[in-house]
């Protein structure tokens, strides 16, 4: 095992969290990510391979599904698989083995910084951040949209619980935007 120490997207050894009013924003570094894109004409195989991986039907447009391993829709015939980092640092390899040559797989673990937004008033924060109607993004929904001029993924995990994936290099800017929105709204 190598001996290099990882930093979170915000540059710390440990993740940051911030609570204002009823809403908490926390940085979540312990996820592994891999993208899966079906090869031309191999969509069916990719769907079943994906289903085998996440133990559920491959999520449709704008959806995510799974338990330990979760897949969310990223584009036409393209998904991102999410798994606990500790147990799945080599996720891309695992997914590759699962999909064989039916799909193109790329490691995306450190391409993204994840922030979880949780709390009863989360909607009043989100309406200051993103143009989508997050009230209508059902639980289990995944959307790719622009937040603070950044292209992000937005997942609704439960009524008051959203995850935002932002480009890792912009983590600090996004965190600043989220926190100022929280101060403003709460």
């Amino acid at each position: 095992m190598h001996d290099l120490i990882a930093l979170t997207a915000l540059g710390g050894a440990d993740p940051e969290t911030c609570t204002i009013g009823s809403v908490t924003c926390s940085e979540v570094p312990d996820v592994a990510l891999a993208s899966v894109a079906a090869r031309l004409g191999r969509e069916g195989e990719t769907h079943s391979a994906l289903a085998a991986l996440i133990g559920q039907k491959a999520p449709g447009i704008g959806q995510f599904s799974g338990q330990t391993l979760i897949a969310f829709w990223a584009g036409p015939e393209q998904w991102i698989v999410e798994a606990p980092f500790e147990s799945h640092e080599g996720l891309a390899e695992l997914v590759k083995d699962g999909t064989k040559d039916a799909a193109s797989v790329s490691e995306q673990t450190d391409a993204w910084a994840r922030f979880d937004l949780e709390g009863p008033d989360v909607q009043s924060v989100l309406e200051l951040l993103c143009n989508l109607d997050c009230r209508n993004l059902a639980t289990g929904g995944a959307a790719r949209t622009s937040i603070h001029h950044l292209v992000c993924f937005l997942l609704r995990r439960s009524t008051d619980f959203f995850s935002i994936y932002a480009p890792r290099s912009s983590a600090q800017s996004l965190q600043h935007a989220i926190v100022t929105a929280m101060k403003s709204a709460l």
Partner: protein
Amino acid sequence: MIIQHPLLGPRDSSEFVYLGDASLIDRPDWQAENAAETFYDYAYLRDNPAGENRELWFHEGGDRSWLVVTRNTVTHEISKVELACDVARMRGRSK
């Protein structure tokens, strides 16, 4: 403006990047006799209609699909939105 994404539903046009006339899909044959002329026409001349215009938008802030949007350039009314890859195939493009 709001673009009715064929897969994702209504999205604010600020999520998209505009390229231009959908005729950019019809790239000429590079080996044709008059390739120089057809490529000049393809690259530079536009119908630029005052009315319905078929145009290419890229969902940069979304699912990275290229769309063909049929939009009225006088009223901005959008009457049709298609995935560009479908349109391209319909127009006989392959590989």
